[in-house]
């Protein structure tokens, strides 16, 4: 009896995250930044469930005021890494806005954003939206329902202002995508004019995510595109109505990434692996057993030092449904995907999509060959680190071999036309052909000069 006990103890000591397998990390005290959004969940979970600790990492998580402060923190080394907009490492690496080589071994999630308009605009939009049999508006709602209102604003000389969170944010591109698909021009960027409002019908400006509801309430903007919980917050506060989620704009679109400087990754290869391992474990936990752990995750996120919004507000999008108009709850089980569908694998094709949008709206002012898109994607996205971390986890019995795309060439299968709101398929291997197929936006060798499109 005593012997079996001893044997049990020995095995359980081995079962518990074994110290012997801990990578010899170069730097063990780390500080990561995040923005108060539900998609920072992998960081909070990796901390709270001790996954960082298991890897021998002592991590401090710190909320940042806005995306610019966060990016500057990573570049200056004040932060070792951060929850980032996928566009940020790409833009920084190609020198748009700021110049710094930032890389990502880990994609944080799929979907998770929405577009909200103020109550007043919603009332004006409603007549333009076909109804379902039960009287509720039919989804997905196209921006063409908004078009007459924007036209009216323009005709009477009032600017139609909308908010997004950063010039190279997913939200900027998603809002532009939705507007353009509905025939509303969101305006171009040019090297001389970085406001992004050249020839615009709807004027987009930057507001930090948590301030979106307050800015909408103040009447500065009539609508915005932001991550959760700031769309649901508008519903709870009764100040706005989400009209569409990014899941409906593009099914399972890539979202945030975890960004580190290339210098950090080079100097601390084991630390980078250890971080990636902890984050993959957190992502697995978040999606395990059909989102069974989500309520617990929501409780953690609702703590003031993480997202801090009320439990019910966060729970709405995290536990499988989304509330549009007050009371109009609809099931969207994949609203926030953290691990399924290879959500955490940093696909080159995701990077290429962001680059095509930068080109489409003039942030990349000159035409680039298809090979350039691939090169930049490979400079920034590091699936090789991801797979190495995944291999270690599989060997430790902490992850399932079948969950990872071992043989991927880094490109997702092309997204079929029916998964995107305007019915235009996306193939990451042919960025220029994709740009040609989009209706509004720069194509071929076109350039924005002053307020003219040349070429």
């Amino acid at each position, binding site marked *: 009896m005593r012997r079996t006990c001893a044997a049990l103890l020995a095995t359980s000591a081995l079962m518990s995250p074994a*110290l*012997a397998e801990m990578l010899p990390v170069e730097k*063990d*005290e780390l500080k990561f930044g995040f923005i*108060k959004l539900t998609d920072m969940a992998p960081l909070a979970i990796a*901390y709270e469930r*001790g996954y960082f*600790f298991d890897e*021998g990492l*002592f*991590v*401090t*998580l710190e*909320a*940042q*005021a806005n995306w610019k*402060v966060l990016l500057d923190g990573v570049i*200056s*080394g*004040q932060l070792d890494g951060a929850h980032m907009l996928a566009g940020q490492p790409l833009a920084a690496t190609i020198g748009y806005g700021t110049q710094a080589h930032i890389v990502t071994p880990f994609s944080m999630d799929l979907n998770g954003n929405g577009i909200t308009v103020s109550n007043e605009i919603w009332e004006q939009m409603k007549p333009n939206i076909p109804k379902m049999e039960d009287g509720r508006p039919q989804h997905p709602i196209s921006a063409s329902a908004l078009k007459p209102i924007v036209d009216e604003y323009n005709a009477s000389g009032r600017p139609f202002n909308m908010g997004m969170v950063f010039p190279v944010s997913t939200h900027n591109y998603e809002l532009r995508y939705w507007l353009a698909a509905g025939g509303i021009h969101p305006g171009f960027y040019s090297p001389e004019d970085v406001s992004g409002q050249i020839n615009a019908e709807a004027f987009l400006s930057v507001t930090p995510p*948590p*301030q979106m*509801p*307050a800015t909408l*309430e103040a009447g500065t903007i009539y609508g915005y595109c932001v991550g959760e919980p700031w769309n649901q*917050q508008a519903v709870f*506060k*009764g*100040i706005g109505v989400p009209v569409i989620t990014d899941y409906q704009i593009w099914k399972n679109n890539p979202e945030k990434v975890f960004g580190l400087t290339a210098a950090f990754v080079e100097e601390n290869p084991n630390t980078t692996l250890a971080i990636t391992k902890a984050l993959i474990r957190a992502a697995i936990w978040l999606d395990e057993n059909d989102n069974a752990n989500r309520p617990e995750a929501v409780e953690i996120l*609702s*703590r*003031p*030092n993480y*997202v*801090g*919004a*009320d439990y019910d*507000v966060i729970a709405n999008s995290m536990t499988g449904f989304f509330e549009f108009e007050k009371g109009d709850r609809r099931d969207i089980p994949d609203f926030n995907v953290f691990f399924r569908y290879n959500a955490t694998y940093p696909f080159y094709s995701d990077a290429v999509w962001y680059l095509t949008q930068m080109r489409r709206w003039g942030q990349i002012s000159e035409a680039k060959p298809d090979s350039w898109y691939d090169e930049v994607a490979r400079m920034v996205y590091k699936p090789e680190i991801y797979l190495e971390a995944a291999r270690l986890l599989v060997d430790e019995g902490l992850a399932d071999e079948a969950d990872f795309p071992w043989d991927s060439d880094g490109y997702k299968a092309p997204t079929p036309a029916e998964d995107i709101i305007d019915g235009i398929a996306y193939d990451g291997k042919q960025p220029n052909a994709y740009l040609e197929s989009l209706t509004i936006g720069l194509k071929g060798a076109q350039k924005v000069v002053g307020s003219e499109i040349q070429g």
Partner: protein
Amino acid sequence: MTTVDPDFAAKEAKQARRERLFTRINKADAWLKVLGLGWITTMVKAAAGDNPKAQMKDIWQLFCVPILAIVLFLTAWGTLAPKVQTSLGAVPGPAQVWEQAVALHEDAQAKAESARVFEERVEQRNQRLIDAGRADEVKDIAYTGAPSYYDQIWTSIQTVFFGFLVATVVAVPLGISAGLSVTANAALNPIIQIFKPVSPLAWLPIVTMVVSAVYTTNDGLFEKSFLVSAITVTLCSLWPTLINTALGVSSIDKDLVNVSKVLKMNTYTKITKLVLPSALPLIFTGLRLSLGVGWMVLIAAEMLAQNPGLGKFVWDEFQNGSSDSLARIMVAVLTIGIIGFLLDRLMFTIQSLFTFTNNR
């Protein structure tokens, strides 16, 4: 004639005790007044049986009126607040704010508990490393979780004192030289006039950039964010001390200055024996103003730069937008007010210590 009143000695002793008691009360009074607790004296006096009628008026004015005012304020707050509807719900009344104060205290206790668990785990890890023969990797790691409300208060207080001390070290010598020499005054005056009205929020970006550029060591003595907040406080709390010191020094009695000339004092003796003692009351007035300004500036700087402290707490809660946020922000507002008051009292006490005897 030897008839002795049997009670005489006892009466005498009682009278003496009474006298001593009142002397003591009066002595304590000076201190209590410094601490803003003057009303205690009157109550003690009344309790000791000193002309209750005269004391009643004092008690009424020093104790009852303030209490009544506070009660009135709380009632007005309690009745008016729920009538203002915001998108986060009604503005919280005193009861909800108290509730959140308690919640914050409980939260701090929970955090202390998780810090303890953290330390335990670090210890276990270190033990296992030692067992595995990797003793060189053993490390003591500070708790990496979120700071509690008390931690935030403590951070803010440390920051304000650090910034204030630096400001004092810079401002007092500069002020003395400006007060002593017309040339120095002429040189400093335009700079003071221009920089004095600059808002802390204008300094902040410059300070942030300069600190990031200059202070590049990652494992230095101070956190960068701490330095940024503290230097911003310094830049804004410099001026009251500087101006008051200069004023205090330049308005020394001319006779004293003449005496110093007669005695052929050197500059150092002149400053320490003559200038400082007579300028002290005004220097302290400047310091009190400086600390007050510094405290106000610090909260704003922390809010804007997201540096740890009470300001960050307020901003984080504003961003959270949870249903408790408004009440929590109000707890912070009251805390900031109370600490500001205590800081002022502290400076006043120190001032009284230095200037009790030589009130000129």
